[in-house]
C-alpha cells in the first residue's frame, strides 16, 4: 500500500517510469494469459483425442485402417467408412438385455441408496439431541472399518444374496461420504423453520417429507448422480455376485466380449470391432454428461467445504 501513495507523490519523470513499468507488466501478464489459454486448448485436444480416435476407428474399414497404421499415419478422419461393426454389435440381443439390466440396476440401486441416505442424513442433521453425536460416530466408523474383499463375498453368500440382483443392489447401497454430504445440505435449512414447524405440531416424518426433501432437491440430485454413476460403471461385484449371463449389466458383458474379440486371431478387424463396442458402451454417458456436469461440480464444492 505504501507504493500507491509513493506513486502519487512522485515527480513527473518517476510517474512516467512507473506508468511504463505498469504497462510492461500489463503486456507481460497479457502474454501469459494468452499462453495459458493456448495451453488449455491444446490440453483439451489431447485429452479428447483418445475418445475421438475411437470414434473414427470404430467406423473405419479394417483394410484401410491397417494400411494407415502400417504407414504410421496420425489419424484424424475415418479410414474408409463402414457402419458394419457397430451394426453387428447392435444386432446382438445380449447387448440390449445387458443395457436393460444396467438401467434397472441403476434405477433400483439409486432408489435404495437414496432412501437409506436421506433418512440417515436427516437424522444426522438434527440439532439438540445428544444421541446424534453417537450416531455420527457410528456412521463415520463405516468409512474406515471396511471389510475386505473376501469378507464381503462370504457375507453376501451367507445372507443368501448370491446369484440375485439384490446381491449387488443392497450390499453396496450406502456410502457414508455421500450421506455426510447430504447432511451438509440439510443443515443449511435454518433452524427457524424447524422450530416453527415443530410449533405447528409437525412430526419428524412430516418435516422430512414436506420441508427437507423439497428444499434439498439439488443436493439429493447430486448424490443421486454420484450413486447412479457408480452403479452404471460398476462391473467387479456384478460379475462376482450375479454369476448368470442373463443378469449381467453392460460393463460385464463388454468385458467378456472384448476378451473374446481379443482372443480371436483377426487383428485389425478385431480392433475395429472392439472400438465399435466401446462406442456403444460410452455413447449414453457422453450424451447425458453435459447435463449432469454441474451437479458433480456443486457436489465436490460442497464436499470440500465440509
Amino acid at each position: 500500500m505504501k507504493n500507491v501513495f509513493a506513486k502519487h507523490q512522485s515527480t513527473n519523470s518517476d510517474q512516467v517510469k512507473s506508468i511504463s513499468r505498469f504497462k510492461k507488466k500489463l503486456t507481460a501478464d497479457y502474454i501469459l494469459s494468452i499462453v495459458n489459454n493456448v495451453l488449455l486448448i491444446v490440453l483439451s485436444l489431447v485429452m479428447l483425442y483418445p475418445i475421438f480416435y475411437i470414434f473414427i476407428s470404430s467406423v473405419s474399414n479394417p483394410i484401410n485402417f491397417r494400411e494407415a497404421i502400417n504407414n504410421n499415419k496420425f489419424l484424424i478422419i475415418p479410414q474408409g467408412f463402414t457402419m458394419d461393426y457397430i451394426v453387428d454389435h447392435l444386432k446382438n440381443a445380449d447387448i440390449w438385455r445387458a443395457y436393460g439390466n444396467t438401467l434397472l440396476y441403476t434405477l433400483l440401486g439409486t432408489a435404495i441408496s437414496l432412501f437409506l441416505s436421506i433418512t440417515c442424513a436427516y437424522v444426522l442433521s438434527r440439532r439438540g439431541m445428544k444421541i446424534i453425536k453417537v450416531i455420527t460416530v457410528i456412521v463415520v466408523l463405516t468409512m474406515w472399518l471396511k471389510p475386505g474383499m473376501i469378507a464381503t463375498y462370504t457375507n453376501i453368500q451367507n445372507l443368501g444374496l448370491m446369484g440375485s440382483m439384490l446381491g449387488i443392489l443392497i450390499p453396496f447401497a450406502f456410502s457414508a461420504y455421500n450421506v455426510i454430504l447430504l447432511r451438509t445440505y440439510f443443515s443449511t435449512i435454518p433452524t427457524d423453520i424447524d422450530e416453527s414447524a415443530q410449533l405447528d405440531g409437525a412430526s419428524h416424518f412430516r418435516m422430512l417429507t414436506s420441508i427437507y426433501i423439497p428444499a434439498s432437491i439439488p443436493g439429493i440430485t447430486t448424490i443421486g448422480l454420484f450413486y447412479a454413476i457408480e452403479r452404471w460403471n460398476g462391473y467387479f461385484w456384478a460379475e462376482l455376485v450375479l454369476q448368470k449371463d442373463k443378469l449381467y449389466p453392460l460393463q460385464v458383458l463388454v468385458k467378456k466380449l472384448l476378451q473374446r474379440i481379443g482372443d480371436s486371431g483377426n487383428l485389425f478387424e478385431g480392433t475395429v470391432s472392439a472400438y465399435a463396442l466401446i462406442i456403444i458402451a460410452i455413447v449414453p454417458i457422453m450424451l447425458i454428461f453435459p447435463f449432469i456436469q454441474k451437479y458433480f461440480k456443486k457436489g465436490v464444492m460442497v464436499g470440500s467445504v465440509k
Partner: protein
Amino acid sequence: MDTEVLENQSVVVEDSVVTEQTDAVEKKEKSSKFKAFEEKFKLSMSEFGKGFGRNMKYNWQIYVLFLPALIWMILFVFVPFISNVLMSFQDYSTSKGVFGSPFVGFKNYIDFFTMQYPYSFLSLLGNTLLLNVLVLVIGFPAAILLAIMIYESKSKVVKGIAQTTTFLPFFISAVVVCNMTIEFLKADTGVIVNILSWFGVPRSNLLDNAAAFRWIYALMELWQTVGYNSLIYLAALSAIDTSLYEAASMDGAGKFRQIFHVTLPGIAPTIIITLILKIGKLLSMGYEKVLLLQTAGNKSASEIISTYVYNVSLAPLVGQSNYGMAATIGLFDAVVAIVLVTIVNKIAKKVSDTQLW
C-alpha cells in the same frame, strides 16, 4: 383472529396422523403471523435445555428414521468386519463357515509376511507403494496446476472447453478405459505404439512390459481423474479473496509472484487435507483397473496387495483358495489405512495449522 388461528393449530395437531401434507409455505406464513406468540414460546422452550431435544413427543421417529441405515450398517459393515477378523485366524473353508473352520492362530499372518513364492510380502508392498506414489506424484500436482490454469483463464469459452474435456473421462467406466488402454498399446494396431514408432521406438506390446506398467497406469489414471481432482482446488481458488490479488499487484507483483504469494497459500489448507486423505489411501489401492490391465508379462510389477487377495481367493485358479489369508490381508489393509491417516494427520497438525480432525 387469534382464537381462530389457535383453533386451526389444534386441528393441525390432531391431523398429524392423516397423510395430507400441509404446505411448507403455509407453515411459514402461519408462523410469521404470530411472532409474539413465538417469542414467548421460544423462551419457555429454551428452558428445556438443548440436551432434551425440543419436540420430545416425536423424538421416537428419529430412531425409526435411523433404523434402515443402522440395519444396513450392521449387516454389511460391522458383521462382515468382525467375521473378517475371525477369518484371519482360521483356515477358512466355505463349507464349514466361520463357526466351523479350524482355528490356526496367527498362522495366516506369519504366512503372509514370510511368504516367498510366487510373491514375497515385500514385493507386493513395494509394488503397491510404488504404483500409488507414482500416481500421486504425477496426478496430484497436475490437478492443482490444471485448477490454477483454468481459474486464471479469462475466457469463458476456454474455461468451459477445458473443464468439460478434462472432466469427461471420469465418467467412462473402468472396463472401457482399461480396454482402451489395452488396445492403444497393442503391438500392431495400437495408436500409442504407432506414435512412439515415429520416435524410433520399436513396436511391441507395451502392456507386457513390467517396467512400463507403472507409467502406463499412472498416465491412464491421470487422464481419467485430473479433471475431477481439479474441482476441489477450483472451489478453493474461488474462495480466495480477490482484494488480495489487487493488493499484490499494487505492490508490483507480476502474475507469477502473485501465484506464489497469494494463490498457493490461499489453497494450502485444501492441498494439505487432500494430501492427507490420499496418503491415507496409499496402501489400499483400487484393484479393479489393475486387474483389468494385468497380464502374465507385467505381473511382477502389477501384482499389488489387493490383486493378490483376489488372485489367491476368488479368481478361478487351479489349486486351493486361501480364504483365511485373504481375510488377513484385507484386515491388514484396513488397519494400515487408519494408522497412516492418523500419523499423517498428526504430522500435518504439527507442521501447519491444518488438520483433518
